[in-house]
């Protein structure tokens, strides 16, 4: 007994203790609390519901039978499908573009990267002016390209979600570019030399060598992009306030509405749990599949 205890080295545990304590306190505990709260009906702005009453899965049933919440889920999916793949592809293309030794390349790298440095709220405010009908930069440019459709981007129910997607892509692609750029610069040169000797053309080199070699980078960026698309809502506040008629309301925005606008603690806890489940499922899947590939 004593012997086995002695063999337990305390140092590693001491070293991870601060992190573990942090995670427990600021991640695990709030999640557990949310799970608990999601089984209760509690609304701060109704005197009789201020004290929580147990309703079992009532909050979840309410949410999933509410056509409006289903709409929010659809919006969220559309937002993710709209932002994640395109900003990753653009990030990759940008990285290919600026991964060369040309004088002044730093300027172009900066140009692609700078949206990331801006706070989302400032970026959205700038875009609010770009989106202005008539003279807004975005609309003027589109008109030059022959666009004749509606220009009221943030006020049109069919375009509002698209407009927040556009801002997110603009904001994120430069960020993903940096990861790809780092990946590209770490690629072994000999492989390319061998390919050149074998007479591979540019497309083959890109598709058969560069892209597969960057697989891990792509995986990493996909995770980040996916999580990002769930947690950025700042620009929605500025651009559309979730409207018009809630057409650009996504899950996190809805969570904010339920908790702070409607003061519905039970429903907001339930949405938090749904949120955590989705992110956890995604992360675990990724973890497992990437592990298998390593093996």
């Amino acid at each position, binding site marked *: 007994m004593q012997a086995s205890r002695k063999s337990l080295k305390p140092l590693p545990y001491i070293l991870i203790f601060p992190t573990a304590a942090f995670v427990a306190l600021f991640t695990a505990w709030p999640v557990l609390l949310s799970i608990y709260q999601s089984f209760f009906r509690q609304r701060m702005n*109704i005197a009789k519901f201020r004290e929580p009453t147990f309703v079992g899965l009532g909050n979840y049933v309410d949410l999933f039978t509410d056509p409006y919440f289903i709409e929010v889920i659809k919006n969220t999916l559309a937002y993710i499908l709209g932002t994640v793949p395109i900003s990753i592809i653009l990030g990759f293309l940008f990285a290919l573009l600026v991964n060369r030794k040309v004088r002044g390349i730093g300027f172009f790298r900066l140009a692609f990267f700078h949206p990331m440095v801006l706070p989302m709220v400032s970026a959205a405010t700038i875009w609010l002016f770009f989106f202005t009908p008539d003279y807004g930069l975005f609309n003027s440019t589109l008109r030059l390209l022959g666009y004749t459709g509606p220009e009221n981007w943030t006020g049109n129910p069919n375009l509002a979600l698209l407009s927040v997607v556009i801002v997110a892509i603009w904001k994120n692609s430069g960020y993903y570019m940096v990861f790809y750029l780092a990946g590209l610069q770490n690629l072994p040169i000999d492989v390319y030399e061998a390919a050149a000797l074998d007479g591979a053309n540019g497309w083959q080199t890109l598709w058969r060598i560069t892209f597969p070699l960057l697989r891990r980078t792509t995986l990493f960026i996909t995770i980040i992009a996916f999580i990002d698309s769930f947690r950025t809502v700042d620009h929605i506040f500025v651009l559309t306030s979730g409207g018009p*008629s809630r057409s650009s309301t996504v899950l996190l925005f809805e969570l904010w509405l339920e908790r702070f606008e409607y003061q519905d603690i039970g429903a907001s806890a339930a949405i938090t749990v749904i949120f955590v489940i989705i992110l956890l499922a995604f992360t675990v899947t990724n973890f497992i599949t990437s592990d298998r590939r390593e093996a």
Partner: protein
Amino acid sequence: MKKKMLYKIFAVVLVLGLLLGACAPAPAEEPVQEEAAPVEEEAPVEDTAEEEEEAVMEPVTFQVFYPVAVDAPIAAILNGYIEDFQAEYPYITVEPVFSGGYGDVQTAIQTTIDGGGEPPALGVMLATALYDLINADYIAPMDGYVAGMEDGDAYVADFLPAFLANSYYDDQLWSIPFQRSAVVMYYNTDMFAAAGLESPTSWQSWAEAAQALTVQEGDATNWGLQFPSGWPYWLFQPLAIGNGQNILNDDCTVVFDDPAVIEAVQFYNDLSAVYGAMPAGVQSAWPTAATDFASGSTAMVVHTSGSLTGILAQAEFEVGVMAMPGKEAGTSASVPGGGNFYIMKGAPQEKQDAAWKFVEFISQPEYVADYSINTGYIANRASAYETEAMLAYVADVPQALATRDALQFAGAELTTQNLGQVRGIFHDYIQRAFNGEMTPADAMAAAQVEADAALADFCP
């Protein structure tokens, strides 16, 4: 080397910042301080009371959470007032905490209270937050303090009545008006004169003027009117009021499906569909609408009185300000907005008491006038308009009086139980009507049904 340089730049910026911070409040204090002193003196308190006050001069520090919602150096102005206040009450220290927008202040206070912490004694939150704050048991009534004043009734009666409309519940006073505004219509008098038009007096003449002033310029349109509707209830309300029916009766009854309200929605749509005088559908660009007007590319804009200072600073033409025209000739309408002072129940009593002293101090006419002049908010007390500073300002900027005068036509701002949800429902459907997804009648009928359901739990 580079690092050193960076540090140097940083240090310079820091010093500049400090200097600016130190200088900025000075001009704001000056005019007020002289006049503020006699007010305190003029209250000749009985000896016993004064002794009592001195006896309880335990040092007390309280926080005030405030938002910045207009384009003005609110922080510097408030710091100036706080210095004056602390000079008069040396035992009280006020810690101003800038907390973002109105929503952020309320969120910060809610999360503090829900997390078991001590809330700030004082908060500036939307006047319309009243019921949510009462129901959540966050705020304390102020009647006791008013009763304890030399002449409490006169103090309260001096506030412009429209601004007190959202302060009472259950016959108790829950908030004191602070930074208040109103919906007004700005119009370019130069354009009106050039087109030989009078300022509008009815829906009809308003729409016709907007139509006449809409000009196509190449690809772009210079609109006769912009009427933002991205967060529509507030600017829309004067349309309904101007047609004789506000969208609410009391905290439990909303009136969305009344024919007069539906007609107001229809009129909004007609302004673009029939008259071609403003952009079609939901107009979500609140900030650009004001700058478009100030730059002269839009002849009229419906906006907050809070934009007056910014518009006047930018505009190179004579800016007209008026209440929104009502439907019938000669009628007008407006609706108040903005934030009030609330005292938080969860703060220790002595902090609440100190907070009240600050509220009382800052609502002296000289301060109310100074705040209005420096921020563009409407001075919220009748007596503020008698002060020298305000008289001088109004002589210079007569539009400031027009914003106050718009308030005589004001109805109550949408304030109900369960406000967030009710307002969300209204926004949802009125925007569907604006965007042509539903007819005004269908949209308002559906909004009524949903809002009634959302209110059912609150209103037995």
